[in-house]
Each structure stands twice: as structure tokens, then as C-alpha cells.
């Protein structure tokens, strides 16, 4: 199973920080994601893309998480050499992280 099976994701940017909103599809998925969205695992999945640190904020009222990834966009939209300058696809990339069940 992947994060994608449990949540909808959308990412945005501020400077070199990528901000991924992870919105669990239901309460059970939220519980699974609470265990799965660990900064070390996220950094491992995104090795070579994100240098970190990564901070995860849980929002139980919305069954959602804010995953804040520093050093994530190759220097930020205005200086990155990546095609995806603002990291709009970072949510999709994170959504492919495996989740143990």
C-alpha cells in the first residue's frame, strides 16, 4: 500500500521549503498515516530530492497532516534547475511512499 491509497495530497512552496498537505480519505486511513508519516521515512523515500529537516504537523480535526520539508526544491523556485520549480508534484512524489499494513 502507498500513501496515495490513504490520502489526497497537494503541495506548494515557500522558498526552498515544500509544504505537502496530506488529507486522509477517512478516519482509518488517518490512523494508518499517523504511524507512517515519520520524518526519517519521508527523508529516506525522498533521498536525493529533499535534504531536510522534515516536520510533520497533525490536524486531527481535519484528518490531515502538513508535511513541511526543508531543503526540498533545489534552492527554491527562483534558482532551482528542476523543471518543477515550485514543487507542485512533490505531493504526488510523496504519495508513492510505501505504507506498512
Amino acid at each position, binding site marked *: 500500500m502507498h500513501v496515495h491509497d490513504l490520502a489526497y495530497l497537494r503541495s506548494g512552496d515557500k522558498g526552498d521549503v515544500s509544504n505537502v*498537505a496530506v488529507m486522509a480519505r477517512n478516519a482509518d486511513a488517518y490512523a494508518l498515516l499517523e504511524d507512517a508519516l515519520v520524518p526519517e521515512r519521508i527523508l529516506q523515500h525522498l533521498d536525493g530530492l529533499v535534504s531536510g529537516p522534515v516536520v510533520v504537523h497533525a490536524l486531527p480535526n481535519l484528518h490531515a497532516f*502538513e508535511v513541511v520539508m526543508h531543503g526540498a526544491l533545489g534552492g*527554491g523556485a527562483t534558482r532551482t534547475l528542476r523543471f518543477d520549480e515550485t514543487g507542485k508534484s512533490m505531493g504526488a512524489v510523496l504519495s508513492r511512499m510505501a505504507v506498512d499494513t
Partner: protein
Amino acid sequence: MSSTATNPCRLGAGTGYWGDMVDPALELLEHGELDAMGFDLLAELSVAALQRARLRNPEKGHIPDTAGIFAQCLPPARRNGVTIVTNAGGANPQAAARAIAGVACEQGDAELRLGVIEGDDLTERLDAIRRSGWRFTNMDTGEEDVDSIADQIVAAHAYLGCDGVIEALGGGADVVVGGRLADSALYSGPLMHHYGWTPQSCTDAQRGAALTVGHLLECGGASSGGMTSQWRESEEPWRIGYPLAEVADDGSAVITKLPGSGGIVNEWTIKEQMLYEVHDPRDYRLPDGVVDLSGVTVTELEKNRMLVAGMSAGPPPELLKVQIGYEDGFIGEGRVLLPWPDAFEKAEWCERFVRRRLEYLNVNVREIQLDHVGRNTLAGPSAPGATGDRDINEIELRVAVRTDTRAEAELARRTIVHLATAGPVGTAVNLPPPVRKVIALWPTLVPRDQVDVRVAVLRADEVVSHARA
């Protein structure tokens, strides 16, 4: 903008960025029974880029499309009494005001009252503020030495809150134009004016509603079917309806869109935008308050009609965010397409060609990016799958190089072009985009009392005659 507290304030989303579609705004202005609409036209980098335009020509530095957008939007806005608030001023609010005033006068609307907000531009004041002992520490990197980029600084602008917007509307403005107004201030300003609130005096619930609703509207269609996981469910997305907020004075709001318009407003589109670029959801810092989303609820009332409640925000922070833009080298980039057979091996050959030729030409490559479009451009090393499929139909190799000088970036760009004739047989190359200058960003903070916000409200014909004088 006179109303009683029992009438909800109706806010429509205009544009979410420079270049956005305008037809959803026109529909809302005509049929939305709106009190106000915001036009956000600035991204993080925009003001620095516009400052460079202003340095080349003092009449520029505002959003170039300002006149075009207002030529379309002023007639329905004026017909229906809708206030417009925009940050089209970019690095030159006066120039934007002249552009809008010119359009109004051409349309026979010389009495249009224009509010102009200035004071966000700190470019000329950085030194003085630093001499007072303030350090412009980089919020992202922790670097304290802004001197290290002093020679490269292009612009420095503070993000302004909605105080100036409220003052301009209180002075009778029909259109308010500023520079680096925070995106949400384009909506929280007219909302607070509607109810007689101010960021300093209102309750946490009222402030929370103003800032959260502003955030839900500031990206145009991004809460009504744009940038959404609900792309399959969105109805007739080619004629998307932009979001419309009905904000009650108890601090709750309904987010909807015009009946019959395309797009979608549901639990997911609202959550997606509410959490967009927020970072810490209990400490989302805006110039007008610190938003806490931990008590928010999102409830569907009916199709395309969502109730958002439990919004909250603490008082305005003492420090304002400042974005310093500085020049930081050049980027040359380009792409080539390699055909079957052996497309992958050809791509590797081209990568080697580029690296070795740049060495041979003594180009000081500060950074290089090599992507296989369709395989790893977005996911990078996290992309699964074989790298050596020898029978793949084609591979697009994308090369991007950052250098200190324009001449070196030009050499890098040329090297990619040269693959057309020096590369493997069958290599397809189109002319790459021009070399571009990098403006890097140094995000920092400044004490609020160092930012002197100035507001003027003038009739359109006065603005035009001042410009001629």
C-alpha cells in the same frame, strides 16, 4: 459597501496569479451579488522581477496586464457596486493606479475613486534599518550576514496586511491598489471594512474568518476545482466557476460558486486550499494575525456549498515578513529528444558530451541538472523502474546549468543546441529558451514600526491629471 451585520459579506475570487483566466471573475462580478473581489497578481518572485523592470523604465514595475484586466472588469464591477482590491502595483503602485485611472477615464468613469497603498518597498531603506541594529536574518537558512549579498540586492518588500485596504475603503475607494499586499489581505480588508472590524480590535474568531477565507480565495480557482485531487469529479472544468464566500459576522463562512458554473467545491477542494502553503497549521503567520486551523470544521450543506466554521487567529505579529530578492547567476537550459534504437544509451552519450564539453570550454558549472523527461524529472531518484530499457521508444533529455556569468550560461545553452549536429544520428533539437538571470530570495523579518504604510484616495481624473503634471 453599506450593509447591516445580518447580511453576510459576499467576496468573489478574481485572479490567483498573473496570467490567470479572467472570465470567471467577469461571471462573478456580473452575477455574484458581490461586495468585493480580490485580484492577486504576485508570486514570491514577482516584485523583485518587477523592480528590475522599474529600474529600466520608471513608468513600469506594475503588472503589465493591469489595464487589460481592469478594462474588462471595471464595467461589471461599477454596474453592480463591487469593490476591487489588487496587488497589481507590484513594485510601482502609482503606475498601476495610473493604468487603472486611464482605463476608467476612457470608459467615462472619471469619478471612480482609487485608493493607492505604498510603503511596502524597503529597497532604499535596508541600510538605514540595519544601522539601527536590526539583523535581516534569513528565515530559511539562519544566515545572519545580509552583507554577503549586499551588492546583488534588487529589491526588498514587506508583506503588508489589510490596514491600508481598510483605510482606503473607509476613504471611499472603489478600487484599492497596492504592491506587496499579502494575498489574503485582498479579501480580509474588504471583509473587515464591511463589518467595521480591524485586525487589532476584532475577536480571534472574526480575525480567523477574515484570514482563513482570504486564504481560501487568494488562489482563484484553487478551491473550486483547480489543482485538485477531484479532477475526475470536476464538472465542465473548461468553464470553471471561481469561489464565492459568504461570510457571516459570527465568523463562519460558506464557500460556494455560481450556480451553473463549472468546477467543484467539496470537502477535499476546501481542505486542499486551506492547508496550501501553510506550514505549521497552528502558527500560520500573516501580517494581520496568526492563524490556528486546529479547530476548523468543514461541512457540506449541499452540492458545491461548504460551511467552514471554527476558524481562529491571534493578534497581528510584531514582525512583518520581508522578501529580499538578489541576483545570483544565470541559468542556461535546453532539451533534446533521442529516438529508438538505443535511445537510453544515446541519452547517456549526450549527458557525457555536455559535461565533458563544458569542462573543455572552461565553463564554471555551479550546478547541473540532467533529467529524462517521462522517467525521473519529477520524482528524481525516488522514481522506480529500470534505467536501462534499451528498447524504449524515445527519451527526452533535459539539461539545465547554473553559472555565475551570462556568457557561461550562453555556452551551456549552445552546447545543448550543438547536440543537433554533433550528437548521435536522429537527435531532435529545437531552439532552447533564452538564458535567464536568477533572482534568489532571502526571506526575513522587520519590526512593524519600520514600515510606513501610506494611503491616498483620489478620483480617476485626478490621478490622470497628476500624471500629466
